[in-house]
């Protein structure tokens, strides 16, 4: 399947949950990101169940706490 992830088209074999996508993209601390799927911010609790489908648009929004 092809999805648009953070503005780039990427291809994956078969379906993925959001949690699996985060892992595949080396985001080892999901606490660091909010995930927007097709324009909607997902509840963190749903990462394990929510499937990402062909044609979806996904954005990882990273926490940035600095102002420093």
């Amino acid at each position, binding site marked *: 399947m092809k999805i648009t992830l*953070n*503005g780039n088209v990427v291809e994956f074999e078969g379906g993925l949950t959001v949690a699996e996508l985060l892992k595949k993209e080396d985001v080892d*601390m999901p*606490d*660091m990101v*909010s995930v*927007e799927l097709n*324009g*909607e*911010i997902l*509840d*963190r609790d749903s990462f394990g169940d929510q499937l990402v489908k062909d044609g979806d648009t996904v*954005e990882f*929004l*990273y*926490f*940035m*706490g*600095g*102002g*420093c």
Partner: protein
Amino acid sequence: MMDFSNEQLQRYSRHIILQDVGVEGQEKLLKSSVLIIGTGGLGTPAAQFLAAAGVGKVGLVDADKVELSNLQRQVLHHTTDVGKLKVESAKEKINSMNPDVEVKTYPYYLTSQNIKEVIREYDFVIDGTDNFPAKFLINDACVIEGKPLSHAGIIKFGGQVTTIVPGGDTPCYRCMFPQPPKPGSVPSCKEAGVIGVMGGVVGTIQATEAIKYILDKGELLTGKLLTYDALKMEFRKINLKKRDNCGICSDDPEIKELIDYEQGACEL
């Protein structure tokens, strides 16, 4: 209309010549007020440009004193200021740069107890803080008080910025990030580092948003998160939507009182 002195006509001539500013716009700026919370990497460039632009009243909030490790990025503070309160150091520079600007200093931290009365005095708020408890407190207080806000964060070679105008369709910070991260799960600049210019780029974008809001010109970064990746030299705008179940800006918000979240031990 206000009477401009000859000095003011000269000082602001590059604004006045702009069709979208003119004398009317400059008068708006001189009569406006912006609160800058945090006078560090983001806050100092924002303060510098807002003061130069002739924003009539600039509020500066920061309890910290200038440290040597600040000077790589906090451009309003100089080597001779080390040990001085940041708000005092910034005030001195602004006073010498532009006598039209009244600077009000708040040398303490904002909490759920004092933030509302401070932000009420201003037309626009700039979040230049360096920690999540402050960022969430500022967002929630601005939503409750209906105060427009520029939110930003920087770390390493990255930055993000969005503008929140409460009361309409604009998503707030909590629409993006419903809860602060667990203390210690996300690194701070102190732990992870930051390229000094990040604050300059992002802080001046915040100042730009404040000026556009005051002038009522152009399109604000409302409903958009602008992300900046300096390594790729890439800016992206991510569309954001208001969340129906947002804890603070939805119709029936879960949060009724401001929250003082605990600071992660490693951020202190």
